[in-house]
């Protein structure tokens, strides 16, 4: 019996992490090789190893393939209108500062349609975590280009190449004063989960850009039709440099141009909550 087990894989019906996922919804809707499932895995591992009780964690997602994230995590989860998860999360954190509020959503959702919320939440240093899944495209609606599509990359609305410069998100977040700014890919699973755990501890706005394979959307227009094509690209082109000059970390997705990864910013700054309390004290509303 023992020998049979060790010589063959064991067929099972549930994983040890099924406590933190909504297992009745599996298999999930994401395409084969989509990086979103790996992001989910890293997030639930980060929750499981964080010192924060499970019932204090909440997740907010917007609309898109990435927006489905909240629906798969077995904690209080909120699926809100397109582009608005940061606004929703800010409100929740301000009213319930005891909660560990995490937004996981797409690039289209958070910085294209929802870009203004992103900018202002960082400027205020609201104490939330934003894990932005960057697949370089509006996946769910048919692969139109957006504010993160690399210059020259093809999409359904840029068949001859995207004519716009993409956002350099770590630079933007750092310039606005975010206390924690990181970037990892879904290949860097352990570093990503560690960064998520750090983000949960940070007081203030913690931002992680997660570069994620989208073989069916972005990949089908840019000769990366399999998830492994992205993973090979990451293996060949990623460089970890925690002290990178953030002016130089924009992503081109051209072979030979590095994708720079790391925990770029780790600093302390008073949060919106701290500053608001100070005003309340001055006004005499708080002791």
């Amino acid at each position: 019996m023992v020998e049979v087990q060790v010589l063959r894989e064991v067929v099972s019906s549930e994983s040890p992490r099924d406590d933190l996922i909504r297992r009745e919804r599996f298999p999930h809707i994401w395409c084969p090789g989509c990086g979103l499932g790996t992001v989910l895995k890293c997030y639930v591992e980060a929750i499981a190893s964080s010192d924060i009780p499970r019932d204090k964690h909440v997740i907010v997602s917007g609309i898109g393939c990435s927006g489905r994230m909240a629906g798969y995590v077995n904690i209080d989860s909120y699926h809100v209108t397109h582009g608005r998860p940061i606004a929703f999360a800010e409100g929740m954190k301000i009213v319930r500062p005891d909660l560990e509020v995490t937004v996981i959503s797409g690039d289209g959702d958070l910085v294209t349609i929802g870009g203004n919320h992103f900018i202002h939440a960082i400027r205020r240093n609201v104490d939330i975590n934003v894990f932005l899944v960057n697949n370089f495209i509006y996946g769910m609606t048919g692969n139109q280009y957006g504010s993160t599509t690399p210059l020259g990359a093809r999409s359904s609305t840029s068949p001859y190449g995207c004519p716009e410069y993409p956002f350099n998100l770590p630079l933007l977040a750092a310039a606005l004063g975010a206390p924690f700014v990181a970037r990892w890919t879904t290949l860097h699973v352990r570093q990503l989960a560690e960064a998520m755990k750090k983000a949960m501890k940070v007081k203030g706005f913690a931002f992680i850009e997660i570069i994620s394979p989208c073989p069916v959307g972005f990949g089908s227009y840019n000769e990366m039709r399999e998830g492994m094509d992205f993973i090979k690209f990451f293996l060949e082109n990623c460089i970890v440099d925690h002290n990178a000059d953030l002016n130089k970390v924009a992503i081109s997705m051209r072979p030979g141009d590095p994708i720079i990864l790391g925990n770029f910013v780790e600093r302390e700054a008073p949060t919106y909550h701290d500053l608001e309390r100070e005003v309340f004290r001055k006004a005499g509303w708080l002791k």
Partner: protein
Amino acid sequence: MNSISLKFVREPINKHLQKIPLGIIHVIPERCKECNYCIELCPRDVLKVGEERNFKGYRWPVIADGKALDCIACKMCEWICPEFAIFVKEVDRTEWIKS
């Protein structure tokens, strides 16, 4: 490949005390979408594409011939799997083989 590179490494004097863990691989066939991440990213080439198909038509990973004892329980397959379809339980190699 491994044995060649190991030749140049000084043998630790406490080598007999060192333990290489053994992983017992578990799969959930119905969840797999055949992305092959687990197979391609296993540092010990333990896995291969299986022959059977699940209800969606995907072939889940199985242990490659003669590789069952090569798994070192690094859990890369478990971490990278986007479907929560593979996981590894670590056991004590010497204890396990003895029993």
